[in-house]
């Protein structure tokens, strides 16, 4: 080995570090690029969920619109407590022709569920009829029996809905979705706009990053309405409503990474 060819150590250090820096930069660039591509993918994966309850009517409503509105605007701490309503099975044809009526779209908080059920005394009759009809049929499988029992228990009339217009298609919600629903209930009371924005049909979407304690770490405008004031009001509503219910541990990571978008109004 010729000594003449040996360069000082600093020369190699410089080269090596230069190469490494380049590699790191390349890695950063690539990952940024792929993350962006992922974001695009995420956009396609957007799933709009809305919270509502479908109510099938068998009698005139006992509660007035005002009473229902009062229940709805109650802070969602109550809503957070309420039990999950299992997606009800398909509606059973009740042998009571013409006396049932689909009331779709009205958003009713589940807090009132028990009272609603109590209110619809007629409902019980319907449920009883179902039972009577079902008894002579020996051939019911256990699964069907359980379904029917669950149906009777739930009054056959109230089930979890999944959209504001209540198209009634029962979907099993994920933990993130049910948490997101809670958020929308918590934020709703704080969501106000001045009258001059009311008729403009604006829409904005806010992306929220929520810590495992339910605090809003960050809230950004994901899709702007084009109106500064409107976006500002939506952000304010989110901030005022914080802190939110504590997310379950299994979803805390995705909630923190901003998987939830809040649509104002959709």
């Amino acid at each position: 080995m010729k000594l003449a060819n040996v360069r000082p150590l600093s020369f190699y250090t410089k080269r090596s570090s230069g190469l490494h820096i380049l590699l790191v930069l390349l890695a950063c660039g690539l990952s940024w690029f792929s993350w962006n591509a992922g974001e695009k993918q995420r956009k396609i994966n957007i799933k709009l969920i809305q919270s509502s309850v479908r109510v099938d009517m068998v009698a005139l409503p006992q509660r007035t619109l005002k009473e229902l509105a009062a229940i709805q605007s109650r802070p969602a701490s109550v809503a957070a407590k309420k039990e999950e309503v299992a997606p009800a099975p398909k509606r059973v044809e009740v042998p009571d022709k013409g006396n049932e009526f689909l009331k779709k779209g009205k958003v009713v908080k589940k807090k009132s569920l028990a009272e609603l059920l109590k209110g619809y005394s007629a409902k019980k009759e319907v449920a009883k009829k179902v039972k009577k009809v079902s008894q002579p049929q020996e051939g019911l499988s256990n699964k069907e029996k359980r379904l029917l029992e669950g149906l009777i228990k739930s009054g056959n009339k109230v089930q979890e809905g999944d959209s504001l217009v209540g198209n009634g298609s029962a979907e099993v919600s994920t933990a993130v979705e049910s948490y997101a629903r809670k958020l929308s209930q918590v934020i709703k009371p704080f969501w106000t706009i001045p009258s001059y924005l009311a008729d403009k049909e604006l829409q904005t979407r806010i992306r929220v990053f929520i810590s495992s304690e339910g605090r809003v770490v960050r809230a950004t405008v994901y899709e702007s309405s084009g109106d500064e004031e409107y976006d500002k009001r939506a952000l304010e509503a989110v901030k005022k409503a914080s802190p939110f219910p504590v997310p379950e541990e299994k979803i805390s990571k995705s909630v923190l990474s901003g998987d939830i978008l809040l649509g104002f109004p959709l």
Partner: protein
Amino acid sequence: MIRNLLVLLFILTLSVGADEGLTVVAVGKADIEKDGLIISRAGLTGTLTDNEKGLVSKYEKLAKNDFSFYKERFNLHNSQSHDSKATAKDYDSLASSGVRYFILNKFEKIRPDTFKVNSELYSVRNKELLESVSTSFSSFDYRKRVHEANDTLFQKMTGKSSIFRSKVVFVSDKGSTRSRGIKELYMMDFDGGNVKKLTNHRGNIISPALNFDGSKVLYSLIKNSKSKKRNINLYILDIRTGESRVVSSRKGINSGAFFMPGGESIALTMTHQGNAEIYSLNLKSGDARRITKHYQPDVDPSINASGSKMAFLSGRSGGGKPMIYTADPNGLEKNVKRISYVGKFNATPRFSADGSEIVFASWLDNRFDIFRIDENGANLHRLTKDFGSNEDPTYSNDGQFIAFSSQRVISRSKAVQNIYIMTRDGDILGQITKSMGNCSTPRWSK
């Protein structure tokens, strides 16, 4: 080198792996903040009699009362005195107290008991004069002038027309004696002022209906005669001339009339062919055309503003429970659709101004209450509760309010019935008729 590549790959997989999709949740429609509104007076010069002072304050009180109907939209602040035009400084202090508009009334005495008033509307947000209306008034016409000026100002603020110019016709038993009960037709401003008696039949008037420009009323009359064959005939009254004439005197009942758009023909219930059916009747020729044909009774038609849909009551579902149906009034039994499936006794379906909703009365817990339903049968809502027995709902011209009659039982033999106004969501604003006897069947001009 290989290690570097590995690291790179690791970073790449990390960023891609985080992709699970976003969840959008709808927060829903925002509550709309009320606009702060101040109505104030600029300095009034000259010496005034007590009468004149009273007239000016009546004008102001009425102006505020108009806007108080729209309490979901406006928050009326107490007026302060502004002696001249608003200054920039004023705007800022007003804006900080939540005021978005203010109206400055400048009164000027032009003759004894007659004033000129210039109403200036300012937008606090844009710091500018939006509108200026001037009118003159005396004690005879100040109500009309206030309502007209306010309607202009309201339109400027909201871009929509108001109820301020609208009228309500109704039936009252004022003047009845113990032995002779009479019900005559009256008309009033939407706020209960300016009551005018329209008829003097000394009989019982039922089911009035106003045409679209509020110039004519249809009504049916049960005459106070001793004869057993009392026919219920349909009349039309020209409000401007005060003349009334019989439109239909077919055998049996001719009632529940409703103007079709254009005002040339009407829909009504007649029983001359035996069963109660709904007919369309040309006012000029008197020719009748059947709209419904069913062995069960069909009554109480109400037509939407475009004339494409008719809501009515029918017993065709059986069980002795009248249900609400819609149909195309331009044909015979055309596009009949059942709207209501519940209720022991549904009555008086009426379309909203835009035809998207139907308000009706239904029997629940031993009384009538008011309910609302979309014209396609969705979204059934209860509007009144624990407020006496409520019947005869009628939408306002802008669709934001519903007038109805409410009856309270005072003792076993006595009950009072008055007309009330509520918002379309059932927030009751107050009693409109006062010391007018028992008032029923309000019909709001469109």
